């Protein structure tokens, strides 16, 4: 699992939608059961793995989450005549999940089998199910009006391309949305925005990230040695090619340069400024953030030898890169 996803999965008032491909589920399950010894199919395994992770996270953070299981490709199942059998299989997967319900994690009353592109019935049924779960999550949650207002404001803020992506806590609390609030109210607003995921405070605490979408994108970039078709598996995200002679090693300056080069449309959330100096400041800050959450690590052995080495952790793999001390 991408480190970035691990980082973002913890949150207050969260509805988790676990999606599996519904079409063909019955066949996949039957095939897995027919093995010796009998096995579970990939969708079942993935669902249980996610549930395990979610359960752990919400329990550790004393949060409450709601889980919905959604089977997709209903239209294909109908076309191929496997709808009723796939629905039954989906219900069987759901039944096995519900056994893991806990005080921290509750399940929607039933799974949904949908066509994700259907803008009428299926869209309405998913929204309706989310509303039911939201009702349970939000029950008795009365908050001061300014708490909702601050969250609304941060929603707008996230869409403003010109707004800073990060800032100090003081700068943040100096924003106009907080004007007139008592210092105790500021503390509450800050805590709520953090818990609801509108801002991110990394372990170092300052500066704070005001655009989680920007940070999520940046944290998903992986460092990689030169591509090797024989050994590379499925390269899933934008990769930054590190030094050819020392695979996985890269100077901080080069890392910043390469981050700044990521400009294709799928990564538009990075919103690099046109001004190169400004972009470099942001890239440097980004490297610091990545260090802060352990996506990029400094190798202590290299610090001793005078050349700090960064290692990047992504999807469980450790790739080393080098930070030259200037």
């Amino acid at each position, binding site marked *: 699992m991408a480190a*970035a996803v691990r980082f973002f999965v913890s949150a207050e008032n969260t*509805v988790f939608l676990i999606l*599996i491909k519904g079409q063909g589920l019955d066949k996949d399950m039957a095939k897995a059961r027919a093995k010796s010894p009998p096995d579970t199919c990939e969708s079942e395994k*993935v669902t249980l793995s996610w549930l395990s992770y979610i359960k752990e996270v919400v329990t550790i953070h004393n949060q*409450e989450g709601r889980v919905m299981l959604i089977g997709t490709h209903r239209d294909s199942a109908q076309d191929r005549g496997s709808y009723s059998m796939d629905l039954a299989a989906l219900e069987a997967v759901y039944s096995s999940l519900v056994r893991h319900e806990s005080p921290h994690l509750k399940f929607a009353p039933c799974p949904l089998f949908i066509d994700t592109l259907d803008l009428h019935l299926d869209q309405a049924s998913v929204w309706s199910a989310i509303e039911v779960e939201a009702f349970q999550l*939000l029950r008795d*949650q009365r908050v001061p*009006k300014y*708490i909702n207002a601050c969250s609304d404001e941060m929603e707008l803020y996230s869409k403003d391309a010109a707004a800073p992506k990060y800032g100090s806590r003081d700068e943040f609390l100096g924003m106009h949305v907080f004007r007139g609030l008592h210092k105790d109210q500021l503390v509450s607003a800050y805590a709520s925005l953090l818990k609801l995921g509108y801002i991110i405070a990394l372990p170092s605490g300052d500066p704070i990230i005001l655009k989680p979408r920007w940070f999520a994108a940046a944290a998903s970039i992986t460092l990689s040695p030169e591509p090797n078709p024989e050994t590379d598996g499925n390269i899933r995200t934008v990769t930054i090619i590190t030094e050819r002679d020392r695979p996985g090693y890269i100077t901080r300056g080069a890392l910043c340069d390469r981050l700044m080069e990521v400009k294709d449309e799928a*990564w538009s959330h990075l919103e690099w400024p046109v001004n190169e100096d400004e972009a470099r400041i942001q890239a440097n800050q980004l490297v610091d953030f990545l260090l802060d959450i352990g996506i990029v690590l400094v190798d202590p052995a290299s610090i001793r030898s005078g050349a700090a080495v960064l290692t990047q952790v992504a999807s469980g793999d450790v790739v080393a890169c080098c930070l030259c001390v200037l």
Partner: protein
Amino acid sequence: MVHTEELPALTSQLLQSYCALRAYGHPTPIQDWPVNLVLDRLYQLVLIKCTFSRIPDCLRQAKQLRMLQVQAALTELPRWLDATTYPHLVYLDVSSNDLRNLPLTLATMPELMFVIARENTRLTPHLAPHANDADPTALLRYLKLCAKGVMEQQRHIRVMLLGLPMVGKSALLECLKHAGSSTPARLLHDRVRTQCPVIEPVEHRVKHKQLARQGVDTLHCLFTDPPGTPADDMFGLESL
């Protein structure tokens, strides 16, 4: 100090003579507590390591109470915990419970000076920092601020999409963003695989009657749509 199991055995006469009662340990069920528990001289009541989830109604009679400490499995404080029931209450300690909220009636209790609610890990985020503040007056001060202002229903949630790559997560998010009767029946979705997590707020007009009655006419959902996680990466996770 008495064990809570011993409470039913105490005579009313004896209880009436108590000014301070410290009960400790696993309680008998609330319904077994003496109905006519006479506590009207009680100044201090401490119930520690109990397992009940609501404060027993019989404690309403302790009108002279100055200090109340309950450490149990409380999920909410009773509506009657107010200035009428406890006009002289100075110190309320409900630490180490399972509270989600605190009533604003606490802010109107004339003699109350301290509300302690540490280690209630489910407290709503706006209360939590004050409940965990080292200053014992911080929480009550904040509750008074809340009482002076306008309270409303929380209407923000997070929605996280999880699953294998190409299962339809981004298509579903795109679909959920389309609203209105003028939209076509089917979404034209031609996006390639999601490469990095998309975090996007989506507003949704609520149709759920109870949710609307609760005061949520528009639900604000902060969607997180991460790239699909291949099965190979998932199976390293601890299984249930």
